[in-house]
């Protein structure tokens, strides 16, 4: 069972804003979905590595990339060739 305060905490971890009015509805839906996920408790096998899995390597070649202008085209705000972001501290 997750509580409204659990859901509010998850929203902070996920950087998803959630309003007070939405909390009750989200919590109810969360609990119904997590109840269903509890089916997985019955799966006995532990996670196993896939035998055929291998790393895929490629040569580290320099290839043409996007121009700085193309990269900045969709940015909300830019300054001196950089993307402007909200302050972190």
């Amino acid at each position, binding site marked *: 069972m997750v509580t409204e305060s659990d859901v509010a905490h998850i929203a902070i971890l996920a950087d998803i804003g959630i309003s007070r009015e939405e909390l009750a509805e989200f919590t109810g839906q969360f609990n119904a*979905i997590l109840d269903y996920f509890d089916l997985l408790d019955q799966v006995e096998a532990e996670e196993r590595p896939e035998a055929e899995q291998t790393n895929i390597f490629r040569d580290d070649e320099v290839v043409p990339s*996007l121009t700085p202008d193309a990269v900045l085209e969709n940015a909300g705000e830019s300054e001196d060739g950089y993307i402007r972001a909200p302050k972190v501290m």
Partner: protein
Amino acid sequence: MGTLAFDADDRWNAFVTICRNAEHGDGPLAGVPVAVKDNISTAGIQTTCGSAILEGYLPPYDAHAVSLLKAAGAAIVGKTNMDEFGMGTTTESSAFGPTTNPVNVAHVPGGSSGGSAAAVASGMVPMALGTDTGGSIRCPAAFCGIVGLKPTYGRVSRYGLIAYANSLEGIGPMAGNVTDVSRLFSVIAGKDPRDATSIDRPYTHTPSSEIRGMRIGVPAEFFGEGVDDSVAETVRTAIGDLEGLGAEIVECSMPSMKYALAAYYVTCTSEASSNLARFDGIRYGPGNESKRSWHDAYQEHRRERFGAEVRRRIMLGTFALSAGYYGKYYSKAQAARTNVREDFARLFRDVDVIAGPTMPTTAFALGEKTDPLSMYLADILTVPANLAGVPAISVPCGDVGGLPVGLQIIGRHCEEERIVDTAFAYEGVRK
């Protein structure tokens, strides 16, 4: 080279963006109008993923599949509506309004490639690209009465597909008939070094209706709880038609189906929580207000611009991956996923393809599904193929109450040719 004037009247809200004058080249699809789902990047054409958070975003490059379409001469006539970021089974969760089903506009077209399916089913375009993470090509194909193919994982490059659950999803063809699906698939399949999971298996097949001696497995679980009786009967009749063409029907069982849906939703929400972290309003989409602190601005932006289902899945995934619950959810989901793969491998030692319904019911009425869990349960028959990465096709096989029913045919890895032939053979007897 030329320009195609695309003057279709979109009464179904199938498109988010329409390109009225579409350029095209020469090649096997010269001048053929093709619609592209709006989570596949198209240079200079708005690509939104059905979300307000990407409204106005103009990708600076083409997805690999789009480059191949252009090289084949196709005219890209627009970007089709979809459930926001591919999350949904109805195409009602788009920020640009729901698409309706051309067969009956009181019903949903299915999702999440509902716009692509409606664009084809309405006759606006002969073929379209969709994407399938848990059934998003096959579901709308079934609900709208068209053909949709989910390829083997990796057979079509995901470069330029805006990621939602990258271990499950892929781009695939949708069209009004099997031949066109096969034609479109031959254009987009093949190796791309920019996608590390891409496999070197081009597709050059011409559909054949010769299926004598083919062994078709029919798992009991595909006709289990929740599957509408009339849908089950319609699909059983279709499988009987395949038997009439000389195929051998083998009743079988897939015990891992019991856990497949939960494993799917834990996996896709976990991947979504990571993949969708990039949508912060800083680098693309409508800008964020940079005067406030990062987290305040970021949280508020995502609350305002993501829809409820996207926020729900990001939060569910964050929870499933959190320290105390990883073992209970994510780790178990991966074990269940391995069981699904092993079940398919076991069945495919004995049969050539597996057949059953694509969806447990016909298309829902618009607004009918309001509870997320009941919506998730509708995906029970399509998610196993995504968990295992095997190819699957949905082909129309009749109507129930005036709404189309889809026959799903699932094959071994990289054996699209075989499921295409089975679907083509069925299409031939049904006509």
